[in-house]
Every structure is written in C-alpha cells, then in structure tokens.
C-alpha cells in the first residue's frame, strides 16, 4: 500500500525525536567525559597548589612583568575603585593601562583628579592599527599607571590600543568593572612559569551580585536572591569549573573570558591583536592564537587555572541578560565560521578533532537541536505519535542530566573552594540549579536562536549593559 503524506510526516516526526534523543545521549556522554576530566584536573591542580608558597613569586626579582589592560567606557562612577584595586594587586612587576574608549561621561576627569594625571605627548609604537589616540596621561602618584584617552572604537579596539602601549611580557585583559582577587595574578602566572608553550591562561569568573564588596575587594560571598543572577551563578560555575577545566585536560580551551585572561604579549602582537569586526573578540583571539601556533609550529597551549577568581556583576533583568546572551552566541557563530578550517582537521590535533567539533555540535547547535526536539515532542505527544515513557525519557536525558551536571559542579566547588559559607547559601544554589531547567533554559534557547538569525542577517551590534555597581550591595541577612 502506498505511504500517505500523514504517514511520512509521522515517520519523520518519530525519526526526528529519536535522532534528537540520540544527539542528547551523545552530548551527555561527552559531558560525562568532561566531568571526569574536570574532576581529575581539579584534583591535580589542588595537589599542585596545596601548601605552596606564593611569596616566592611575589618576592622574586625574575617574575615576568604583567601589563593590565582595562578598557573603560562610561565608567565614571566605578573607575576610581576599580583602578585602585588594580594598583593594589599582589604582584611585583605590574603596569596598569586604562583605556578610555571615548566615554561620554567624566571617566577621564575622575581619573585625572584621583590619580594626579598629567598629559604627555601621545606617541607610541603602533604595532596594531587602531582608532586615534587623543591624549596620553601618566600619573604623578602612581608611576605604573598609564591612562590612554582614545576615540570610541569598541572593546577590541581599546584592547589593541592597550597592547600598543603595554610593555609587559604578559598582558592581562580585563573589564574595567571586574574585581580581581588580590592574589589572582600570582596564581594566573603559574602556567607561564611552568611551560614555555603557553600563549594564554584564563581564570574563573564569578558572579558578585549580592556579595559584599569593599574597597574593590569581595569580602563576603553570598548567593544572589534574584532568579536570573542566581541561575547565572550556577551557570558560571558549570562553565568554568566543569567545562573549561575539563576541556583543559582534553585538548585545551577555545575561550578565555574577556573579563579576565592573561596572554603572552609577543604572541598576541604577532597575531595582530584583537579582531575589531566581531562581537566575540575574546574567543576569536584565543582560537587564532592557537591556530597560528599550530600552523607555525610555535607555542599554542591555552590553560585554565580554576583558583584565581575575578568577580563580575551579572545581569539581573531578562532584557539585559537576553542582550548579553545574544551577543555571546553571535560571537560564537562568528568565530566558528571564521575558523571553519579547524573542523575535524587532524592538522590541529585535539583542537581540530575534538574541541572545535564539541563547540560546533554542543555549544553552537544546542539551541537548534533542543528547540527541534521540544517542538517534535509536543507535536508528537499531541498527535499520539510518541508515548509518554518516550517523552519522560527525553526530558530525563535532556534536562535531568543537565540538573545532575549542575549539582555535580556545585559539589566540585564545595569540595575545592567552598566559597559560600552558609548552609542557606548552599540550599539557595541548589534551588537555582533546579530552577534553571524549569524555564530559564528554554528562554536561553530562544535568545540564542534569535542571535543566530541576527547573525545570518548580518547584524553586529554590541547591546547595552546596565549594572548596579559594586559599592552598594543589597545586604541580605546572614543565616
């Protein structure tokens, strides 16, 4: 008997759901691999640093110099605190370069007043082409502080200007509103001391919302009460302690957060600095550095160090968060497209055969697969094409496993760093991990799908971010 249209659609739908279930099973198996790798790596790194004295690096005359690059755009309210915290980091050879990216507020005026800046003739070696530098300032009170005032050109352009002015062997790219732990640089420099083939190293970024910050330092860590911020705490922990740490072991990372990462300056300059025509400049630079390292048989290792932490304020409103995720995903799509040559290319070893395909199939395609699976599931259930046990199994594989991963990450954090002191905070975090799968994840799928459409339409806007600031945290009662 000939197959009717209805039969064909029915078969297709069932096939789609089964295919997506298999996709999730494969993704989850890979996650399990990353999980084991992350736990192993955490164990190894914990053994390496346990009881180690950081005074050796702090007091040594042969420590590599680090230039911190802090791009600032309309940061007048927070810039003083941020720069002061940078200048007081525990590191012997430090240079702080603040790049004012054409702010429309009083950022430069505030800096001039607070740090006794005087303008100097703005000449420098333009190793990377950038927008024009308007004024260069040096501080009379802090000899290691340089402030560059330039035309607005975006974060990548500002970082490139910073690279042109920097003199350190290593450069540390941060967001001006990031709070870095005082000894974070001492920990982050370790991979560069350990191996000669490291081009970049990243540390953990944590959400500061509702924690108490004083004098540019986080003094008390608390779990956020806002749902979006709370879920992001779990997300960040999962991304850093589980994802990046695990990938460290499996073939190296492709991402170092733009909020806190250290790079070998000569390697970045040789690679031409940050790409200005992408919204994922941090990831793009790391992929390019690694790729060129492989192609030229030079250094290409990227390390993730879990213990140094930088704190950033994560969005608490749906609109701002959606803009941020939209930008991140467009950045990911763009980087994947630019470096498509890596895809299953054995020339790039683990990066080409494992890490790039992971980012493509898991990070990039996840929203597409997840939305297709959900739609297929709902339609299939309504049409009676799939049974309830299948639907339950689908949810267990897609979401139940996600919950397990989040819970395991919280456990990893608890056993290694245990930053959240109170039991109430621990319970709150567990609650956020549970809630993540009940709506938030679906919102995230929509945002990321939208960003893919935007990318295909060629839109490249950055998206405005609003922040509450560190100075006035909302105090919550301690348990």
């Amino acid at each position: 008997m000939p197959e009717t249209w209805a039969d064909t659609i029915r078969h297709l739908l069932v096939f789609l759901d089964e295919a997506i279930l298999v996709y999730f099973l494969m993704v989850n198996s890979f996650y399990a691999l990353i999980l084991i790798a992350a736990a192993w790596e955490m164990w190894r790194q914990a053994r390496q640093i346990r009881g180690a004295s950081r005074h050796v690096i702090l007091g040594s005359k042969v420590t590599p110099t680090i230039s911190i690059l802090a791009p600032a755009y309309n940061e007048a309210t927070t810039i003083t605190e941020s720069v002061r915290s940078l200048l007081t980091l525990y590191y012997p050879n430090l240079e702080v370069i603040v790049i004012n990216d054409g702010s429309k507020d009083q950022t430069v005026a505030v800096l001039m007043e607070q740090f006794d800046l005087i303008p100097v003739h703005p000449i420098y070696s333009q190793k990377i082409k950038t927008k024009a530098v308007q004024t260069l300032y040096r501080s009379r009170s802090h000899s290691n502080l340089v402030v560059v005032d330039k035309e607005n050109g975006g974060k990548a352009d500002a970082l490139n200007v910073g690279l042109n002015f920097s003199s350190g062997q290593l450069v540390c790219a941060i967001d001006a509103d990031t709070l870095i732990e005082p000894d974070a640089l001492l920990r982050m420099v370790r991979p560069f001391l350990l191996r000669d083939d490291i081009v970049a190293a990243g540390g953990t970024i944590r959400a500061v919302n509702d924690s108490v910050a004083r004098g540019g330092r986080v003094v008390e860590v608390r779990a956020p009460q806002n749902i979006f911020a709370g879920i992001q705490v779990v997300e960040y922990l999962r991304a850093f302690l589980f994802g990046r740490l695990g990938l460290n072991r499996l073939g190296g990372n492709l991402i170092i957060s733009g909020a806190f990462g250290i790079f070998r300056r000569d390697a970045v300059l040789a690679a031409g600095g940050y790409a200005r025509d992408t919204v994922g400049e941090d990831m793009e630079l790391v992929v390019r550095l690694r790729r060129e390292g492989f192609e030229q048989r030079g250094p290409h290792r990227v390390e993730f160090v879990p213990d140094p932490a930088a704190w950033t304020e994560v969005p608490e409103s749906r609109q701002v968060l959606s803009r941020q995720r939209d930008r991140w995903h467009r950045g990911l799509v763009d980087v994947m497209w630019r470096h498509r040559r890596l895809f299953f290319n054995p020339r790039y070893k683990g990066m080409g055969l494992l890490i790039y395909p992971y980012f493509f199939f898991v990070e990039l395609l996840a929203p597409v697969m997840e939305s297709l699976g959900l739609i297929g599931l709902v339609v299939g259930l309504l049409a009676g094409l799939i049974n309830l046990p299948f639907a339950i199994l689908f949810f267990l594989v897609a979401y139940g496993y996600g919950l397990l991963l989040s819970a395991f990450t919280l456990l990893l954090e608890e056993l290694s760093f245990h930053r959240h002191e109170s039991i109430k905070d621990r319970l709150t975090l567990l609650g956020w991990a549970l809630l993540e799968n009940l709506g938030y994840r679906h919102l995230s799928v929509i945002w990321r799908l939208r960003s893919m459409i935007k990318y295909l339409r060629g839109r490249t806007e950055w998206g405005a971010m609003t922040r509450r600031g560190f100075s006035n945290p909302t105090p919550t009662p301690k348990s």
Partner: protein
Amino acid sequence: MLPEELATWVLCVECAILASIVIVFLGHGLWLQRYKKWSHPLLTQAREALTLALEDPTRGRQLLETFRTLPVRLQVRLFAELAPTLSGAQKQWLADLAREMCLTTRAESRCRSRLWWRRLQGARLVTLLGGRNAVMLPLLLDRHPYVRAQAAEWAVSRQDSAVIDILLALLGDPDGLCRFAVQDSLLRMGGTVIERLTSYLSAHSGSEVKAALEVAICLADPRFLDPALTLSQDHLPQIRSLAATLLSTLGGQQAVNTLTTLLDDPAPSVRAAAAQALGKLSHWPAAPMLVPLLRDQVWEVRREAGLALRALGAPGFLFLRRALNDTNQFAADMARHILDLPHQV
C-alpha cells in the same frame, strides 16, 4: 515506542545520583562548619601558646601541651603559618620542635613516596621544618617538575657547593617553573653563589646562559665583569642584550666602552639595552652618542635612548631639548614625550 520500565529506570538512577550529590554537598558544608567551629578555638589557643613559647623557649615547653594535643593536620598548618615569618634561633627552635613531634620524620618519609604529590607535600614540609640533605638532594633531580622546583626552594637553606652546582645545572631545566625556582633560590643565596656562577657564565654561551645572566643581573657583583664582556659578543642578540644589562649593574670604563660599541649593534634589542644601560650608569659623556638613537628606525630604541638621556640629568635634558627641533619628526616626538613624563616615571 519505548517500554515504560526504561524511563522509570533512568528516573530512578538520576534521582539516586542527585540525592547522593545533594547529601554529600550539604553534608560537606555542615561538616565544614562544625570543623571550623571546633578547630578555630583550638588553633587560636595553640597559636598563642606557640608564640609565647617562641618568645621564651626555656619556659615554652610547658606551654606546648595544647599544641601537642592538636591533630597533625592542624599542627602542620600552624607550622606553615609561623615558619616563613621566623629566622635564626627561633626558626631553629621551631625545627627542633617539629623533629621532636616527629613531623620532620613524617615529612621525610613522604619525600620518598612513589606518588609525586606526596613527594611534593613532603618537600614542602621539609622546606618549612628543615630536613636532611640525604632526603632532599635526590628531589632536586626528581622526575616531576613541581617536586624539583620545591627542592630548589629548599636549597636556599643549604648553601654548600654541591647544592649550588646542582642548581646551576638546573638553570637549563626544560621546565619553566623549575628554572624560575632555581633562579629565585640562587638569588636568595646571594654572595655564596657568585664564584660558581662566574665560572658557569665563563664556561657557557648562547641560550644556555640566559637564565644565569638574569640571576647575575640581580646579584650585580664585579666578578661578573669578564664573562659579561665576553657574552656581549655572543651570537644571540638576546644574550648580548642581557650582557649589556649586566654591564649596567657593574659599571667601570671597560663596561662603558663595550656599551658604547653595542649602541651600533645590528639588533634593535641590543641597541635599546645598551642605551638603557648607559642611562642607568648615568654616564653623561655618552649623551652625544645617544642622540642619534632618537632617530633610530625602531620605536623601542628611540624610547630607551630618550629615557637614558633623561636619566643622565642636565646634559641629557639639554640634548633632549635640542632634539625638540630635530628635523627628524620621530626624534622630536620622542624628545617631547620624554620631557613630558612626570619625574616619578
């Protein structure tokens, strides 16, 4: 279509794993809170007793009973807290106490473990508490870089020639962390390493001496003059630059003459280092020779020449002001930039 049992089975497994994770997560949190509550007063008491005992070692032994009752982990923690802040007789007293309490023996036995992380832990403890050469010397040649680096840190307290020779040999270690630790240890040893380091510098060349030159620069002893003069002719620009920097810490007519020659070196990094060195030596007769470098093709050389002229004081400023009207725009710009810099920079 799938059997109902499969979904139930997966659900049960996931629930069981989740429940175990939650129990360990919360259980660890609770245990940690209780442990802190329990250990904090004990630690405070023991810390006070130990501090008092350090002040008056004769009376101190009686005070140490609280310390002896602590679990080993907390004892080690207190030793780790105190040891880096002590020196001389007090440090020796602490080391004796550790030996008396068998902590040193425990640490030394860990140094012989087959597991690298136990050896590392042992080496860290021996560095803090003191230990025998026979245990630590083999660790300088351990197969794990972290252990080698830790042994190098320990070596600071053992300034005999055998240890120094091993450290110098480790300057060429393929592992960066180990090299760093060795450099740091040699620097902390100070004067005792000068002679052997001089011999090392005289006997080696090229990339082999890079790490040793970096140490020599920080130690700045006149005995390095001859090897520095020789290495200033090395085939590698990086070594010539470092030799120039070393010469800047030594001074003297021979050094100045060599540095003046290096101002014409084909490698920009060497020219920059030579200019910087002459500035550091405040050798004002070199001012006219630095001026042409303000017109150099390479930015770093121009900048170092400008800074060197500034470091020369009045004669240098005179040349910088003249350079403001230089027909070469690069030279004029650099002079302007240098003259604008605040004194502190």
